[in-house]
């Protein structure tokens, strides 16, 4: 990059690209498929599969172009800053996405459920649910007719505790990899990333096992009332983000192995690292508010 003498003047404007349109088509067929699928229309699953396939094609294509451009030094420092700022604002919006669900949890626990249980300022509501007493986790629902009964709520020990340790460790290995990058030590970078990926995969596996356990033994399902709903909404979206983050880490790992990054030019690495730390922090929130308190 530093070889480009006109770096400060020439902001790279890409030639017309088919990828945005491809991306739109992919998203469109995916969500259209979901909508049809949920309503039992036969074409739905196919549409989603088509959309998914297009999106995978898109990722290879678009990122491929960006990697090419990056490797042929088309990006000056201005472009690099745009990428960083773009990533920053993207993570900001993701933060608000998670804040939404934490806020919902707060709302249920401190505002609406107490009313149903006969406290707070809509306490009269309790006459509709005689016998309902509020306590968290809500094991006995106001009316269980349409829901399934929880046998046992989820505790903070065991898998969630291991997962906390795993994710915190992965943050450390990732930072260690970053140091490697700064020292231009390819092996430290690759080993660090590989460990991070492994920890990510391990986390996902444990969480999958936890879900399995919850469904089969604890009676804790999407269908078991508000505790199950919030539990799966928060941990599920988090797990989804971990999965995305792991995929991104794998891409970065491959690129590191190919020696794509240098001390000055490694926005992709940093973007993924920020994302991973963000996912990490969300987990800490989850651990405290979903499993523990």
């Amino acid at each position, binding site marked *: 990059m530093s070889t480009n003498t006109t770096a400060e003047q020439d902001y790279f404007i890409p030639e017309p690209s088919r990828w945005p349109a491809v991306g739109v088509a992919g998203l469109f067929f995916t969500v259209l498929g979901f909508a049809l699928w949920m309503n039992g229309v036969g074409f739905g699953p196919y549409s989603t599969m088509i959309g998914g396939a297009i999106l995978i094609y898109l990722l290879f294509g678009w990122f491929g172009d960006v990697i090419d451009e990056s490797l042929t030094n088309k990006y000056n420092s201005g472009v690099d800053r745009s990428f960083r700022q773009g990533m920053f604002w993207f993570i900001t919006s993701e933060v608000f996405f998670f804040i939404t669900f934490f806020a919902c949890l707060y709302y249920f626990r401190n505002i609406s459920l107490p*009313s149903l249980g006969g406290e707070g300022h809509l306490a009269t509501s309790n006459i509709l649910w005689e016998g309902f007493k509020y306590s968290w986790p809500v094991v006995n629902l106001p009316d269980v007719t349409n829901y399934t009964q929880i046998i046992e709520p989820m505790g903070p020990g065991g898998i969630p505790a291991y997962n906390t340790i795993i994710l915190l460790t992965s943050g450390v290995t990732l930072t260690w990899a970053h140091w490697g990058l700064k020292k231009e030590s390819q092996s430290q970078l690759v080993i660090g990333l590989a460990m991070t990926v492994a920890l990510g995969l391990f986390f996902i596996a444990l969480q999958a096992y936890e879900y399995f356990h919850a469904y089969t033994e604890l009676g804790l399902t999407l269908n078991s009332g508000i505790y199950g709903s919030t539990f799966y909404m928060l941990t599920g979206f988090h797990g989804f983000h971990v999965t995305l983050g792991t995929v991104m880490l794998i891409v970065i790992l491959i690129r590191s192995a190919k020696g794509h990054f240098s001390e000055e030019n490694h926005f992709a690495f940093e973007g993924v690292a920020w994302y991973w730390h963000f996912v990490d922090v969300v987990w800490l929130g989850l651990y405290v508010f979903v499993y523990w308190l």
Partner: protein
Amino acid sequence: MSKSKMILAVLASLLLTTLAGTAYADYALNFPEPVAPLTQQMYDLHMLTTKIATIIMVIVIGIVAFVLIKFRKSKGYEADQNFHKSTFGTWSWTLVPIIVLGIDLTIAGSATDALQQVEDYSQKADVTVKVIGSQWKWTYEYMDDDIRIVSNMLPKEEAGDNYLRAVDNPLVLPTGKRIRFLHTASDVLHAWWVPQIVYKKDSIPGYINETWTNIQKEGTYRGQCAEICGTGHAFMPIVVEAVSPEKYEAWKAEKLMVAEAAAAEASSDKTWTKDELYARGEGLYNTNCSGCHQVNGTGMPGVFPGLVGSKIATGDIDAHINIVLNGKAGTAMAAWAAQLNDLELAAVITYERNAWGNNTGDAVQPADLKSARK
């Protein structure tokens, strides 16, 4: 009357650019006359803010008009390029917000008393009515007496000019008593609103909201459901009949007697003939069920199933009883167990099984319902 209102409306519209909200004094263009202390307070508050709004608009329009007349290029006016550097230019950014803040606090301050009143639930109520919104009718339960009223919209032929504002069974309330309303709903959100006597609070399924009033004047007060609740949202009017406490007591006594008789009838072990049930069922069907399933039982394809020749209405009796008693979760079909008594349910079901060519010949007995309720 109606011509003049039209002309007024047109005039008022055209007047906007010169004077906002001129015609507010006439009740035809304003809230209907409030007849309870709280709605009176709200009305006064509304008049106050309207006046403030009008004054602000007069000021804004006045300044702009002056500017437009005075500072136009066609009159050769040269722009003053240093105006924003004058003392006013330097300080206006504090001046304007301070003035606006002052007006704001005046408005907010004038609202606090009424707000306290709205939220004051400490006083004991003389009458408590639970108001239940359902798609698309209102049910009133007098909490202190065992009275329930189901209130449906009157069809056009009967309601005349009050169509969409008239019901078969109005809510009857005494004047001069503190009345407490508990609002809830059985299916989706609704809002019970009779502007002259009570403001709105949403009816939320599973939760209870409160409002209260104290009606000062006998009369018939009308309102409408004020929260969108689906297909029939336009068709769930509200009528309150406010009567003197004496008349109210008399009405209550009579109502209780009738209810008692009906209950006795329903729980007696009498076996009813098909025709008796059918005849009772027809009326009940037309007030309770025809909103969705239609008077001729054809339903609305894709939305509400037709009952003509339907599997349930011509098949297994127990399945039929079950869906009417318990409804079907997740659909508009509500549970009727709490809304109709055994006799009424038996009658409706019998009617459905024999009307519109559903000639099953079955006569469902109250006793069947009684056992199904367990």
